[in-house]
């Protein structure tokens, strides 16, 4: 089983390596290679997931650092394998989808290799038995996201977005690295099993520090406040990449790691409380910001921010199963939503909702699948989102009543924020739905937006809005299945909860909470629909700059971090060149000046020399007397 696990991890990696070495013209071979590798990996991951769990063994010695040793191994328990399946499935669909979406791209092999590497990195995070090994995957994802977001090099916003994505997550990663180190040093091992087993023996201060540091990394990777700023900008990448980042990889990694190390986090409530506060802020922030966006993908991106906060909220209130459950359902419906959005963009050549409308009839498959996705996002029964979100809110309620892992106030906080967010989610989802698919159809402009890959026929000539080819629609249909049905998997404790190492914790919807949240959803939907009715085709939500600009947090970040950093860099550079190097150059110049001064003594006048000699002789004699 371990060998299969290594294959799951290794196949995408091998595909990535080969893909990087392929000539950039070998598009076809790259497609075959990466899709088949990911496909096989998917099959294998399913086999592994259905097999018996394998506890992590130390495995290969990777880095013997004396008193500490890093191993490479696999931890194939239920949580890991089921998430791995989700990763593989989404990755496979993305690879498949990309064949069409990026047809004609001049750097396809590189792109496909990067996606494979991304997949491999995420699988490494999921399957790793060692924290450092996990960290490797964790950060490789960062660089892959950088490369993929910046894939369209002609798109002006792609480069800064890519840099931002990498840097912001990197800031979080410092915390993550330090957290891992603190844990590893404190316990004397990086093995996850050992860490979980012995974390309790660590001094509580150290442990809390480690957890908080890890949370910093989680916030970066999973786009939680205040490190969430990169995610909306990351839309500059190709849409399949957005699907990949938002659904199964990258943002999920943070949640996954907390779930993975949940026994450690549970030891002290401080970290969970912090996580809860962050989650509450983030989910409201994300939902509100989503309400103000015009860019279709940006709405989805902010919704991811908000939905991931549900998961972290669930973790904060001591409901890791709910978190994982939501992670899985979210993976399905968010992948679906993004891929569908990709179809929309591909069909219309537009990214702004204000330029869309009335696509319902022209893109029926997209419309219906996206409707499923949005329903799941809102949490309408019987879609999967309903169940998972309900589980999260139920967890919060349990906590609020004092039955959860964390303090009650965290439960209240998460629960109230979660309920509010339900309403907001319903509002922005409806807004998106209406503005994209209903209302008057916009005449597509010429392909003024150059960044996206268009079918060869789309670049020139009149724009024809039609359903994309089957390669792009099949993944939508495939994803629609779990989007709708996955929720039922949690109903019986022997199904999903058992796989998640939480036997007996079936995820039943709680009636009261379900009613409240449904009522809020309905309220949100009704508000938007009513506004839409009043003026079809226009934005049903007033465009508040504060929402559009996402509470100006980007500007805050710019003013508080980026600008001071630039200034500091300039000052340090100048000081280094002026003072430190100046001292060096100055000593050279000083020697030269001294040389000039001293050489004036050599006047050429022999009498002066004689004076020097005799005076020196007298001085020597006097010195001798004094000594």
């Amino acid at each position, binding site marked *: 089983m371990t060998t299969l696990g290594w294959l799951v991890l290794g196949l995408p990696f091998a595909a990535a390596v080969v893909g990087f070495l392929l000539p950039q013209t070998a598009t076809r071979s790259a497609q075959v290679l990466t899709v088949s590798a990911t496909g096989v990996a998917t099959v294998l991951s399913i086999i592994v997931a259905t097999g018996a769990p394998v506890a992590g063994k130390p495995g290969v010695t990777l880095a*013997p650092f004396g008193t500490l040793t890093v191993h490479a191994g696999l931890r194939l328990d239920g949580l890991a394998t089921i998430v791995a399946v989700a990763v593989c499935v989404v990755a496979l669909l993305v690879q498949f989808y990309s064949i069409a979406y990026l047809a004609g791209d001049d750097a396809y092999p590189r792109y496909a290799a990067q996606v494979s590497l991304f997949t491999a990195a995420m699988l490494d995070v999921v399957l790793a038995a060692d924290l450092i090994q996990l960290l490797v995957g*964790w*950060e490789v994802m960062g660089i892959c996201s950088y490369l993929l977001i910046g894939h369209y090099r002609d798109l002006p916003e792609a480069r800064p977005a890519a840099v931002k994505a990498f840097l912001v997550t990197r800031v979080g990663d410092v915390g993550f*690295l330090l957290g891992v180190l603190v844990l590893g040093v404190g316990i004397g091992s990086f093995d996850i099993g050992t860490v979980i087993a012995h974390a309790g023996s660590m001094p509580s201060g150290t442990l809390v520090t480690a957890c908080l540091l890890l949370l910093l990394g989680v916030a970066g990777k999973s786009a939680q406040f205040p490190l969430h700023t990169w995610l909306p900008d990351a839309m500059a990448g190709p849409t399949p990449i957005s699907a990949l980042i938002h659904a199964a990889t990258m943002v999920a990694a943070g949640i996954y790691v907390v779930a993975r190390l949940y026994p450690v986090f549970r030891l002290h409530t401080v970290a969970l409380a912090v996580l809860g506060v962050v989650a509450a802020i983030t989910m409201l922030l994300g939902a509100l910001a989503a309400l103000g966006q015009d860019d279709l993908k940006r709405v989805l991106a902010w919704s991811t921010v908000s939905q991931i906060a549900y998961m972290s909220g669930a973790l904060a209130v001591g409901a890791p199963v709910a978190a994982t459950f939501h992670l899985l359902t979210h993976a399905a419906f968010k992948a679906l939503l993004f891929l569908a959005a990709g179809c929309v963009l591909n069909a219309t050549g537009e990214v702004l909702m204000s330029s869309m409308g009335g696509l319902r009839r022209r893109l029926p498959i997209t419309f219906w699948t996206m409707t499923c996705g949005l329903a799941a996002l809102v949490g309408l029964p019987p879609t999967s989102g309903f169940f998972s979100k309900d589980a999260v809110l139920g967890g919060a309620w349990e906590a609020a009543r004092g039955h959860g892992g964390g303090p009650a106030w965290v439960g209240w906080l998460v629960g109230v924020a979660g309920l509010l967010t339900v309403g907001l989610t319903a509002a922005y989802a409806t807004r998106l739905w209406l503005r994209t698919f209903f209302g008057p159809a916009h005449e597509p402009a010429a392909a003024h937006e150059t960044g996206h890959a268009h079918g060869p026929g789309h670049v020139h000539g009149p724009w024809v809005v039609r359903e994309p080819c089957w390669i792009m629609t099949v993944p939508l249909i495939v994803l629609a299945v779990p989007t709708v049905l996955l929720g039922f998997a949690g109903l019986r404790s022997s199904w999903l909860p058992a796989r998640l190492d939480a036997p007996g914790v079936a995820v039943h919807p709680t009636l009261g909470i379900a009613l409240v949240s449904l009522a809020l959803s309905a309220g949100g939907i009704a508000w938007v629909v009513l506004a839409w009715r009043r003026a079809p085709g226009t934005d049903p939500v007033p465009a508040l700059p504060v929402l559009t600009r996402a509470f100006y947090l980007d500007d805050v970040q710019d003013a508080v971090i980026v600008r001071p950093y630039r200034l500091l860099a300039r000052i340090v550079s100048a000081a280094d060149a002026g003072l430190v190097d100046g001292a060096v150059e100055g000593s050279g110049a000083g020697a030269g000046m001294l040389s000039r001064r001293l050489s004036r003594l050599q006047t050429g006048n022999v009498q002066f020399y004689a004076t020097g000699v005799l005076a020196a002789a007298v001085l020597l004699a006097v010195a001798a007397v004094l000594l």
Partner: protein
Amino acid sequence: MILVGVLALPALGALLLALLPAHLDRSARWVGVAVTAATFLVSLALLDGRSSGAKGDWQHVDVRWVPAIDLRFHLGVDGISLPLVVLTTLLTLLCAIYTVHSLPAPGRAGTMLALVLVLEVGMVGTFLARDLLLFFVFFEVVLAPMYFLIAVWGGPQARHAATKFVLYTLLGSVLLLVGLLTVYAAAGTLDMVALAHAHGSGIARSTQGAAFLLLFAGLAVKSPLWPVHTWLPDAHTEAPTVGSVLLAGVLLKMGTYGLIRVALPIVPAGAERFAPLLAVLAVAGIGVGTLACFTQTDLKRLVAYSSVGHMGFVLLGISTLSEVGVQAALFGNIAHGVITSLLFFAVGGIKERFRTSEMAAIGGGLAKRLPRLGALLTLAAVASLGLPGLAGFWGEAFAVLAAYRPAASLDRTLYLTLAVLAAVGAALAAAYFLRMLRSVVAGPPPAAAQHAAAVPDASPVELLAWAPLALLGVVLGLYPALVLDLTKPAVALLVTALPG
């Protein structure tokens, strides 16, 4: 025998090349490749005689040279030396291969390769020497060839840069000599093995302190430690590619190697006393390197400044006086050697093509214009910013880890602060490398470039010279045990000398 061979081969090769008449310049390059390849193979043979877990030298040569000053020709190889020796011979080989492709003005491959080979003798000798004076002699051997390499084959300001380099490092090495002789005066022997075994016993604490400071000052210049680093950017900016590669790849390691090999085990009490100073300066170097890189406009200068930061991690690792720290430092040495060499090769390739290393003048879109070169530069930059999975990560992360838990006798709070600062510095290293990639590799090519004559992408010879480094960067990143297994026993032995 092999030990002598690995020194004699390049020495004889240098002699041969120096005597080669000028009209055979073309063949001189192949002679250079042959000699360096042979040296590389011989250096691999140094593994011979190693039993797993071997702690001391598994090969050594010890003959009298100048008995009057107790100088012995004492060489040895252990796990600490071997990786650096192999790195040296490999880089020299790659430099020789690269020279087949390109030779900066004013040409004369024979002379240049002769200098490179002399450089190799000095570098390898430094890593193999087991006699303090012999160590110093080899340490000095590199100065003159490097000076001429920069001054003659370098850029417009080469003379100034080369002079600065040579004077600065000479100041360092003279202080080193003073330190070594202080040890000698106190201990009465120059035998590094015996001195290391003695763990500083027989040398008064105050003497140890003075000796460590002197050794430290000398080696710090070479490493280079902030604030004695300013020769480095100048030298790198002006040096020819081969010079930059060897300078960054190996020469800097001589400083850190010296600290590990000489300063730590021989005067441990001094090391203990001044380790916090070293740590603080190392972290300052990380900060300055990171911040200064952010404002650089010249590629070579940027890479040079990044070296200051990276070597800061190595020095931080050393300053922890712990096994993990020293292991991290040794690995960081190798990793930096591999990655920065690759960076300099790539940047050198760019400079050769565009006749400038100013980022603004090069313009963006390298990935489109020269995909292979762009990819290599990207890989090198990514590896250099310490991405896990590539070689740069291990040394830096574990240096931070070592600083989190330094030797027991050191001030924990100080080191904790430094560990955090270093970690932040590591993260910010990403900022300037991404800035570089963003302005050079990514983006559309400048409009002018589309009309200009096509610039050729990396040639097969260049790829041959560069690929091993790229490969090593990945392999060491995925399987660092390759080096760490070698160094571990030797470091364990060394660490027994350290306090705490």
